[in-house]
């Protein structure tokens, strides 16, 4: 058993990060996917995670969304433990109730959109606010329509997902996540399942969010150019840990580590 007393019950001080991974380890059986990850994301920061497949980058987002449990370490969101909670002055694994309370601060978009196929675009966006936040239908409709407008999907609000293209579905999914007003947004390879010609419509929406809203964002992507454009920081993952991180210009322009150089040149060759 891990000694939990090394982790604070909550983060204090002037400079509390929005997200902090502290010694986070994730294993599947004997395979260690993430090995003692330490990563802070500041409020309003846009951090992009890149790396070869199997490097654990998607797991980082999934743990933060509580879709995966962690084996060791603690994740903090806005200073409070997410994966754990305080009980009698010590940290214990989070209860479902604690998870529900903490999860409300986090939103996520998926590679395969995961829209609800039996609901229209508008109903998809209203579902969370009405059911989970207990908002009135009028209020939720107003909020959802504003967001669908923001992502350029207001015209298609009464369409079911099966009638929308991949890019359109992903834009609705972004609006759906934003409708919950999360403090942290996670984008998990949101353009990977899209046809090349519609990738732009999704990246433009995200670009817009970065420019106009003070959301904290974590993104996993293979679109290096896009990542370079909009990120405050890039983390290069290799084999379950952060091999190198830094500002986009530095990391892409002058990578220090050999593995980073190899990865970036391989990506460049693939075009």
């Amino acid at each position, binding site marked *: 058993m891990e000694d939990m007393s090394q982790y604070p019950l909550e983060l204090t001080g002037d400079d509390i990060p929005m997200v902090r991974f502290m010694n986070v380890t994730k294993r599947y059986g004997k395979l260690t996917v993430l090995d003692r990850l330490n990563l802070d994301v500041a409020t309003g920061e846009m951090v992009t995670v890149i790396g070869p497949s199997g490097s654990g980058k998607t797991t980082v987002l999934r743990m933060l*969304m*509580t*879709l995966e449990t962690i084996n060791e370490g603690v994740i903090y969101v806005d200073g409070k433990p997410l994966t754990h909670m305080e009980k009698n002055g010590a940290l214990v694994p989070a209860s479902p109730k604690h998870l*529900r309370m903490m*999860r*409300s601060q*986090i*939103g*996520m978009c*998926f590679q*395969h959109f*995961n*829209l*609800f*196929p*039996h*609901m*229209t675009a508008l109903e998809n966006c209203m*579902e*969370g606010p009405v*059911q*989970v936040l207990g908002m009135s239908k009028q209020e939720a409709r107003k909020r959802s329509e504003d967001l669908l407008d923001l992502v350029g999907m207001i015209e298609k609000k009464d369409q*079911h*997902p*099966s009638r929308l293209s991949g890019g359109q579905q992903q834009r609705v999914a972004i609006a*759906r*996540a934003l409708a*919950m007003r999360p403090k942290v947004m996670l984008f998990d390879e949101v353009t990977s399942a899209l046809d090349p010609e519609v990738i732009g419509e999704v990246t433009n929406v995200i670009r817009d969010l970065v420019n106009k809203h003070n959301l904290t964002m974590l993104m996993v992507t293979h679109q290096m150019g896009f990542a370079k454009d909009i990120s405050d920081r890039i983390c290069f993952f290799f084999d379950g840990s952060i091999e190198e991180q830094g500002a986009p210009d530095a990391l892409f322009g002058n990578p220090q580590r050999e593995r980073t150089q190899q990865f970036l040149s391989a990506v460049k060759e693939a075009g």
Partner: protein
Amino acid sequence: MGFHWKWDFTWEILPRLLEATLNTLIAAGAGYAIAIVLGLVLALAQRTPYRALTFVVREFVEFIRSTPLILQIFFVFYVGPQFGVRMSPWTSGMIAIGLHYSAYLSEVYRGGLNSVGKGQWEACTALNMSTRQAYTRIIIPQAVPPALAGMGNYLVGIFKDTPMLSVIGVAELMHTANAIGSESYRFLEPYTLVGVIFLAISLPAAGFIRVFETYVRRKLGLK
């Protein structure tokens, strides 16, 4: 003995058989209503994180599916009273047939629920929905269309199995045909009519179920 079909006798017994048909429909409907609800409970119980519960329910379903319906009917009706549970033929029959078909329907539901992708659950978590909200709002509505064909089959199945209730004295169609036979010593007309009535209800029902399935899919906006 030759083939002597008596039309006047046929017309004479038809009203009695039609009356009994109503009982058959009520039995099938009530039994199916029990099975639909209980089947969902059995299916959901097998998806909880509680291993012991899952195991017990799983074995229960297997037990029900592996023993004959007629045995279960006899058991409820004749063995029940020995434990102080005394019920009318109707009540016993509804419990037995409802229980029996709930086991089959739970398997249909299970298939439907499993057909809903993992991504839908993840979206529910990302929207911070409770398990209950996820099931009622997202998962079950999507599990129903793929389950409808199977559900329809068992609706026709339960309807065709109601004659078994005649063995404990439920006055449904078969029971009435038997009664007519032993009163008049004529079996050809009553049994033939029973067959025709079953056919006349089963065939359109199967067609109706297919139409209903398409309607539900369209209504839910699914392909």
